[in-house]
């Protein structure tokens, strides 16, 4: 009975892992990059001019700009500059529901960038929307995350031997053994991270995927739920009676007294200039684990304090903390790098699982001269997913430096370059000789990342050497990380190089030892 259970879990782990693996790999990699979203933004906008101003000055600047350009909007969102991102970001919705945005230098109120790019925003969005229209991408991402939970739990059962041989990794053993060790080690050692990140990932989209309770209680009026739950800035419909909006800075300073030790993150103004105006001042999201900090609501006609939202109830708090753990906005520099590292481990765990599937299958088929269609398909998709994605990311960064600044739809063309490179990698994987595709694509990826600092030095006014000498941490960190990533890809290519016999992977396979057969599903 016990064996039967483990076999079934192994079957589940193998197949669920395979089916969702390619997508999960892309989600893990882009999510890992999204940890450094503002930093990637900064690298991708090398001509960005930002004046550092105080919080009060930034609020005044936004206040001035919006009164001038969006006086009769339905609502304003003001995202204040912070130490990681000095840009003043504003969105506003007109009364017909049309959205506008402005990325400005808070000192001069001029656009902060000439080079249109989505920057790190692209990875952040792709991570949970998969470049699909709403809500399909979010649905698919949620589904993949749920499968990931299943794969993790069934994987714990399948690979439970690792808990007995904790710390075991034997890279010099036969390929399958080494891959299995690596897969186990990557999975188990970072298991706390994998479990928390996957569960919290499912939680972030739970209102979309598990709406039954909300529907039953609140029906069509989902806003009522968010009002009751608290933390959402209130926006009332316009009354039609004009009342001048008081200056925002004194309101922000009054709100700030509720959290003297941290900054203001966002200011939301509903119905500005109307008798029903509401001004909500929200605490910065890096001040606490939970995604939402404190918020203070003012009457936007009289300036009277209406509400202080700072004590979510247990269920809301649990949700907000899980959400916060997922996005890691609370994390300082060191912890952010640790998150990044764990994300890399998770990506490698998925990649090694996919490769392991193909190795095992190939091994079983060695007697037949040609692989079956299914095995071949998996191999092609493995290459396209695991080696192709780094190529696509490299193409995205290269296009950022190579496309002319004035190009129409420039930000979108960068995205096309990303998907174009990815598609080419798939075509190459399907058409080229199997023994060399891994090698070619990994080496190409290594070269693309290794040359990125050089490309950047040739096309912009900054270079890696200068960045290091001047202590520009973001620029230097980005390009050093690119070099490290190039080294990792080159090392993987080196490990996978074909020795003398027909296929890259099959050559290094020796007969499986007994213990392994017991473990194989």
């Amino acid at each position, binding site marked *: 009975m016990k064996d039967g259970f483990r076999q079934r879990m192994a079957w589940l782990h193998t197949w669920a892992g395979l089916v969702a693996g390619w997508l999960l790999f892309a989600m893990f990699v882009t999510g890992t990059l999204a940890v450094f979203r503002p930093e990637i933004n900064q690298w991708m906008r090398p001509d960005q001019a930002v004046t550092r101003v105080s919080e009060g000055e930034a609020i005044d600047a936004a206040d001035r700009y919006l009164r001038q350009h969006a006086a009769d909007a339905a609502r304003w969102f003001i995202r204040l500059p912070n130490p990681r991102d000095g840009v003043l970001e504003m969105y506003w919705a007109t009364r017909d529901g049309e959205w506008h945005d402005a990325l400005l230098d808070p000192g001069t109120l001029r656009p902060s960038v000439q080079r249109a790019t989505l920057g790190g925003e692209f990875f952040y969005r792709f991570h949970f929307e998969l470049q699909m229209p709403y809500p399909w991408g979010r649905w698919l991402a949620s589904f993949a995350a749920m499968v990931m939970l299943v794969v993790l739990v069934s994987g714990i059962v399948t690979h439970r031997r690792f808990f007995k041989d904790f710390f075991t990794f034997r890279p010099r053993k036969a390929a399958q053994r080494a891959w299995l060790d690596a897969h186990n080690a990557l999975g188990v050692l970072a298991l706390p*991270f994998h479990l928390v990140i996957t569960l919290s990932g499912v939680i972030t989209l739970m209102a979309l995927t598990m709406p039954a309770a909300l529907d039953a209680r609140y029906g069509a009026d989902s806003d009522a739920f968010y009002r009751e739950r608290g933390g959402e800035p209130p926006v009332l419909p316009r009354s039609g009676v004009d009342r001048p909006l008081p200056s925002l800075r004194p309101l922000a300073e009054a709100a700030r007294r509720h959290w003297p030790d941290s900054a203001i993150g966002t200011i939301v103004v509903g119905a500005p200039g109307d008798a029903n105006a509401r001004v909500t001042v929200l605490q910065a999201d890096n001040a606490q684990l939970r995604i939402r900090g404190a918020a203070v609501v003012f009457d936007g006609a009289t300036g009277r304090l209406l509400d202080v939202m700072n004590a979510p109830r247990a269920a809301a708090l649990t949700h907000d903390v899980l959400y916060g753990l997922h996005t890691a906005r609370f994390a300082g520099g060191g912890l952010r790098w640790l998150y990044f590292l764990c994300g890399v481990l998770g990506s490698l765990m998925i990649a090694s699982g996919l490769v392991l599937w193909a190795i095992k299958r190939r091994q079983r088929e060695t007697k037949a001269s040609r692989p079956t269609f299914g095995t071949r398909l998996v191999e092609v998709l493995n290459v396209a997913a695991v080696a192709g994605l780094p190529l696509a990311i490299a193409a995205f960064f290269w296009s950022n430096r190579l496309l002319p600044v004035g190009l129409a739809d420039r930000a979108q063309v960068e995205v096309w370059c990303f998907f174009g490179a990815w598609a080419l990698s798939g075509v190459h994987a399907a058409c080229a000789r199997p023994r060399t595709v891994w090698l070619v694509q990994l080496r190409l990826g290594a070269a693309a990342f290794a040359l990125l600092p050089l490309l950047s030095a040739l096309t912009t006014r900054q270079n890696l050497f200068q960045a290091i000498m001047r202590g520009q941490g973001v620029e230097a960190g980005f390009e050093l990380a690119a070099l490290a990533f190039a080294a990792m890809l080159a090392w993987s290519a080196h490990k996978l190089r074909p020795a003398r016999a027909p296929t890259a992977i099959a050559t290094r396979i020796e007969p499986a030892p007994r213990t392994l057969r017991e473990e194989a599903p």
Partner: protein
Amino acid sequence: MIQLAVLFSSYAAFTALCLGMDGHHREVFGRAPAPGRKRLLRGAGWALLLASLLLAIAIGAQGVVAWAVMLTLSTVLLVLLLAYWPRRVAPLGWLGLACAGLALVASVWS
């Protein structure tokens, strides 16, 4: 500084726990540990792990999150060390313990 104490003490803890296992002790020292030594290593490992958790709790909520992720970092370092440089495991474990102590003293001092 206290963050470093958490990292180093968790690293030292895992080194002790790892060497408290017959197989890994054999890889590093060429023989299985005597029963007393094994008990000592395991006890020290769990005690250090508990100590690193207490230090993390002293930092606050962020500290506990960082602790969980540092456990992963420590074990990954240890696994690579065991695979490629098994002779360095024991000395670096002692070094980790010493650094944890120094970091703790430095953080109390300042």
